[in-house]
């Protein structure tokens, strides 16, 4: 018996083509807006001399997490500078910061809504599973017809890939607020808004911050992969090293990614702890 093959791929492709042509105005608008944002952030970070930015980051680490992280930051960033990877590092940082901001801006309201409505929760959770388990590379392909080669496509794919933990943790954080505290707020006649802003959100903040930390880490890993569709930064250094078969260069860029990752992770974690 011959069962015809379901043309799933064809459907998705024609759907994407339709989306691209139909919404080209929208995607072009988003593209221009995003590109401007990235450029402004990137240029201002590049405008600062290396030592000044290094000092600023060290100071921030000192304030938020204490002297140990500050010393680590200085050592790590100095190494990156010395290896001549400063500019790619800034480009990567820009993409991560920008993608994280977009992801969080979308994730917070969605996470809150999913926490408060059971129906929405049941709709959103499988979508998140899909977003997280789909191999990250796959997002790169439709990004190109939407936004062309370059940073904007990288941001698009990164936002989709890194957003789920921020949504999940926000939902979890709000749902974890003890029933008796909700009851107390209700008993004193709190409106939904008062309950959300005075009780649920403040109490879920540590969990939300954990989610944002995860989002940043995922964004960093995706931004590196996004070098394949022309994103600048440390990823493109790695990509070039692969193409030229130069393991030394590849590891140098890789180590820079690790340093950046550790720095971002410790910083956001300390932010979470001071909030608690």
């Amino acid at each position, binding site marked *: 018996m011959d069962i015809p093959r379901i043309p799933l791929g064809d459907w998705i492709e024609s759907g994407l083509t339709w989306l691209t042509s139909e919404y080209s105005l929208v995607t072009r608008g988003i593209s221009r807006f995003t590109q401007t944002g990235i450029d402004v952030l990137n240029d201002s970070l590049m405008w600062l001399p290396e030592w000044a930015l290094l000092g600023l980051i060290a100071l921030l680490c000192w304030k938020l997490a204490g002297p140990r992280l500050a010393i680590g930051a200085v050592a790590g960033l100095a190494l990156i500078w010395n290896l001549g990877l400063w500019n790619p590092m800034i480009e990567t940082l820009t993409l991560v910061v920008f993608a994280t901001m977009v992801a969080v801006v979308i994730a917070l309201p969605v996470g809150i809504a999913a926490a408060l409505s059971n129906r929405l929760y049941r709709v959103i959770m499988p979508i998140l599973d899909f977003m997280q388990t789909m191999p990250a590379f796959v997002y790169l392909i439709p990004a190109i017809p939407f936004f062309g080669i370059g940073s904007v496509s990288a941001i698009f794919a990164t936002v989709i890939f890194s957003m789920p933990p921020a949504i999940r943790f926000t939902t979890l954080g709000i749902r974890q607020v*003890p029933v*008796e*505290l909700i*009851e*107390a*707020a*209700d*008993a*004193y*006649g*709190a*409106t939904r808004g*008062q309950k959300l802003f*005075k*009780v649920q959100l*403040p*109490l879920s903040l540590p969990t939300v911050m954990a989610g944002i930390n995860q989002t940043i880490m995922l964004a960093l890993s995706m931004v590196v992969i996004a070098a394949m569709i022309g994103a600048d930064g440390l990823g493109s250094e790695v990509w070039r090293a692969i193409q030229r078969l130069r393991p030394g260069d590849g590891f140098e860029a890789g180590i820079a990614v690790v340093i950046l990752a550790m720095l971002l992770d410790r910083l956001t974690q300390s932010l979470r702890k001071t909030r608690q």
Partner: protein
Amino acid sequence: MDETRPVKIKVRGLSKVFGKHPQKAIELRNQGMKRPEILEKTGQTLGLSNISFDVYEGELLVIMGLSGSGKSTLIRCLNRLIETTEGEIVIDGENIPTLKEKALLECRRRHFSMVFQNFALFPHRTVQQNAEFGLEIRGVEKAERHKIAHDSLKQVGLEGWEDAYPNQLSGGMQQRVGLARALANDATVLLMDEAFSALDPLIRKDMQQELLQLQSKMQKTTVFITHDLDEALNIGDRIVLLKDGEVVQIGTPEEILTKPADDYVRRFIEGVDRSRILTAESAMRPLRTTARESDGPRTALHRMRDHTIDSIYVVDRDRCLLGLLEVDAASRAIEEGADSIIPYLTQDFRKVPMDEPLHNLFAMFSEKSFPIAVIDKQEQLLGVVVKGAVLDELARAGEQ
């Protein structure tokens, strides 16, 4: 109790069914079925069935029942944290089960403060901010709510703890914050859901005494839930006894003790008249603190503060009782720069030997609120008896 007193909350024919098909359960109930049969037939739990009672203005009404009796459900129906299935709850002319959402919020803000069994304090807010919560919700201006909350914290003896966080406080102190939060709100009715059940017995007794003192000052209409007969007898003006979601008896502690409505109540209070053979010794408890004759007024005052009491017994080196120092007298002594507290002592308290029959102590409590001192033949202070402990002892005798 005077039946012509103004009614604050009128509850009539209140029922609550847990489950998706409440009407089925109500029908079966109307045919005379009880909770277990209804559960078996329909899968619906009849939480409360046809409850009717009044809460009078200014009284402390205790709703007492064992676990599963529906008492927690009942108190939550009053401010509609739980939706009712049928019946009326009327407060100042408003029927709570039929209020629209906005009117319900307004009603909760105006009429109800609530104290919870596990305190339910907001861990991210300071003691002060917790006490302000109800006022903040109602939109009271910042300076004003700060002052009101401060006053109510003072009232429950938590002055100086404003900036602490709940997790830095002991259980008893946490519940004081819970009480302060409720008092600051100045709602017309205070709901207390097993408010003292999570506290250890000594602290619980103190809190009961304090609640009674506050109550005598403020005359706030209070509905107090408990599973503890001692507590119910100790603090209630009237008691509503619940069993399996139904009212078994409503009455004053005396009525419950002397005229139990049925065997269930009788089993609760059995043997209470054995009080005649109980003595002061059985209800006595050791003093947590005393002052010595050599103590200055500041030391004595400090001890009182430490134990949140407003009078302290003073003994000499051989623990012989010299007198009682009241908090006002101690303050006066400090103002007048006195070194010794001896001139400020009062003898206006009761002392009894260990074998004094317990029922004689009842009369003494109506005169003065000081604990009764228990002494031996050499006038040595052995311990004290507080009002709660007497009823407690009677109730315990009843359980045996």
